[in-house]
C-alpha cells in the first residue's frame, strides 16, 4: 500500500531532486533556463519542503523554503502528489512577479524531466538519451530508497535492520551514489565515501536499465555477474528490500 506522505517525500527529494542532475547532463535543460535565475520553494503541509535554486545554467536543491523567490504552498501531501501528477495546480503565495519563470522555464524543465524519467521506446532508441535517462533514474531510485526507508512503514522496518555505514550503489562506467545509514535513519550522498561498508554495483547501463524497467531479476542477475554485491551484505539485503518498494511508489 502506498502512503501519501512517503510519496510526497519521494516526489520532492527523489523526483524533483533529480532536476539538478538534469541541468548537469541534459543540454536542452540548460537551453531552457538560459540566463535566468530564480528560486522555487515548495512547502507541503504535513510533509516535505524544499527550494530549487536556478542560476548560471545550474540548479541546487535545499531543504526548507524560507528564502525562495516563488513559494508554492500545498495543503497536504495528497495535493502535492496531485501537483506532480498534473491534477492539482498550485497557487503561489509569494513571487507573483516571477510567474513567467514558473510558467515558461520551470514547467518546461519539469516536463523535460518527465520525458527522461518516463521515456518512450522511441526515445530510448537513442543511445545518448538512454544513457542520460538511466543516469537520472539511478539518482531518483537511490534518493527514493532513502525516503522510503525513512517514511514508509515497511521501509522503516527494513531500515531498522540496517547497521551504520555507507552502501555504495554504482553503475560501472556510470553514476554512483551512497545510501548512508546512521541509527537506522537513511541519507543520500552523491559522492561515495572512501570507506563504504557494502556495495551493489551494476555491470553496465544496459543491466541497470533492464533492472529498473523490471525486465530482469536482481537475484538472478547476481548469479550471472550483472550485479556485484559485497561487504556487509545484510546492509545490501535490506536496501534491496526497500528498493523493491520503489516500484510501488514510482511505477
Amino acid at each position, binding site marked *: 500500500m502506498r502512503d501519501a506522505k512517503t510519496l510526497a517525500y519521494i516526489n520532492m527529494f527523489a523526483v524533483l531532486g533529480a532536476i539538478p542532475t538534469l541541468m548537469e547532463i541534459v543540454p536542452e535543460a540548460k537551453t531552457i533556463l538560459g540566463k535566468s535565475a530564480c528560486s522555487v520553494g515548495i512547502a507541503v503541509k504535513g510533509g516535505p519542503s524544499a527550494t530549487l535554486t536556478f542560476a548560471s545554467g545550474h540548479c541546487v536543491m535545499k531543504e526548507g523554503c524560507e528564502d525562495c523567490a516563488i513559494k508554492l504552498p500545498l495543503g497536504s501531501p495528497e495535493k502535492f502528489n496531485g501537483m506532480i501528477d498534473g491534477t492539482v495546480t498550485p497557487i503561489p503565495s509569494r513571487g507573483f512577479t516571477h510567474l513567467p519563470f514558473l510558467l515558461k522555464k520551470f514547467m518546461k524543465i519539469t516536463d523535460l524531466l518527465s520525458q527522461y524519467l518516463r521515456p518512450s521506446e522511441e526515445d530510448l532508441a537513442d543511445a545518448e538519451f538512454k544513457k542520460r535517462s538511466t543516469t537520472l533514474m539511478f539518482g531518483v531510485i537511490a534518493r527514493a530508497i532513502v525516503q522510503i526507508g525513512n517514511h514508509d512503514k*515497511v521501509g522503516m522496518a527494513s531500515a531498522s535492520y540496517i547497521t551504520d555505514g555507507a552502501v555504495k550503489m554504482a553503475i560501472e562506467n556510470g553514476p554512483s551514489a551512497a545510501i548512508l545509514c546512521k541509527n537506522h535513519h537513511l541519507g543520500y550522498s552523491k559522492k561515495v565515501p572512501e570507506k563504504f561498508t557494502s556495495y551493489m554495483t551494476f555491470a553496465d547501463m544496459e543491466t541497470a536499465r533492464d533492472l529498473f524497467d523490471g525486465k530482469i531479476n536482481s537475484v*538472478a542477475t547476481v548469479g*550471472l555477474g550483472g550485479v556485484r554485491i559485497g561487504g*556487509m*551484505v545484510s546492509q545490501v539485503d535490506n536496501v534491496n528490500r526497500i528498493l523493491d518498494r520503489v516500484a510501488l511508489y514510482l511505477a
Partner: protein
Amino acid sequence: MHEVYTHPNSQAQFRRAAKVIPSGVYGHLGPAEGCFIPVEAFPLFSDHAKGSYFWDVDGHRYIDYMCAFGPNILGYNDPDVDEAARKQREKGDCTTSPSTVMIDFAELLVDTVKSADWAFFAKNGNDVTTLAIMASRAYTHRKKIVFFKGYYHGVAPWTQKIDYAGVIEEDVANNIYIPWNDAAALERVFAEHKDEIAAVIAQPYMHGNFMDNELPAKGFWQKVRKLCTENDTVLVVDDVRAGFRLDMAGSDHYFGFEADLICFCKAIANGYNVSALCGKEFMKNTISSMSYTGSYWMSAVPFAAGIACIEKMKKLNCPQILIDKGGQLKRGLVKAAADYGYDLRVTGVPSLFYMRLADDPTLMLHQAWIAECVKRGVFFTNHHNHFINAALTDADIAETVEIAREAFEAIQKK
C-alpha cells in the same frame, strides 16, 4: 600449492538455469542468498559427492564444510544408510498404507530424544516449525509468538518479516521480537502480554547469519523454561540446524532443559528427505486434532535411512566426534590466520562453527579470503555457520588448513 579453480561449466549451466528457473538457483544454495562473492569463485552446480567431498561440474573436488547446509552428517553416500534405503526401496516407498518402518522410526526417536514422547513426520524443517506454532496456538488458544532476533525458522509467512516479498502485515502481526540471551526482556513481554503468548520459539543457541554465533548465557535456558511453564506457554526448540551435532538426545538436553516441542530435519537421515516434530505427551492430543499432512510425508525410504543414520550416529557418538573435529579445525585455522597477522574469530559450537575475519569490519577482507579458499578446493561460505561431518579425516583438516594458509597469502599479496 593447490590449483586455482575456474568454473566455466558452472557458469554456463547457471545461464541455462536462469532461463527456466526463477533466479537460476533459488534460496540458500544459490549465489545471491548464499553470498557467493565474487560469484566466479564458487561452483554453482555439483556433479557427485562422496564422504566429506563433492565434485562440481567443472571436475573440481571440494572438502565440503557446508554439508548441503547440514544434512550430510555421516559423509555423503554413507554405505550403511544407503543400504538401508536401498532395501526399503525394493519393498516400497510411497504407498497407499504407510509402512511400519514409520513406527520403528518414531520409536527410535522417542528412545533417543530426551524430550520426545512421540514423533510426527514431514519433509522439511519449515513443515515442522510451522506445525509446532500451529499446535501451540491450538493448545493455548492464543495468538502471539515470541522470537529471538537473528532467528531463522523457515520460509513460511509467519517466519518472515513484514518487508519480505509476499508477506502481509497480518502474517506477522502477532510476532514479538526480543534480543537473544535477554531473559529480562522475555519476562517483560510475558507481563505486557499476559495470557496472550502461545509459544516461545528459539534455536538452541544464536546461530544466525551475518553475526558471530552466541551460546546461551549461564542460566538463560532454565529461566526461559521457567517463564514458559509459569505462563502456560509452549516452549518450542528449533533444532533443525543444530540437531544431532550437539547431542543425540537433542540440543535442549545439551543445554540442560526440556523443550515442549522440538523440531528436527537436516541431519536426521543423512540427506534422505524427512523431518520430525517431537514433543511431550501433553501436546500429543492437540497434534492429533490438526489437519496437517503432505503427499510424501509417510514415504518409507527416508524412514529406513533415518533409522540407519540415527543408529550409526549413536554407535559412533557422532556429536562428540564432530565437536572434536571442529575443534581441531578451528585451532588450525585460527593459528594459520595469526601466522599471517589476521584475527580469525570462530564462534558457536565447533561442530557447526561460524567464522569472521575481525580485521575488517566491512567483511570485504573476509569475503576475499573465503573466495581464495573456495578457489583452491575448500568449500566455506561467507556468512552462515558451517557443518562438520563424520567422514572428515585428519588429512582433510590438515589440507584445509594448508589451503587456508595459501588463501591468506593470496589476500596478503592483493
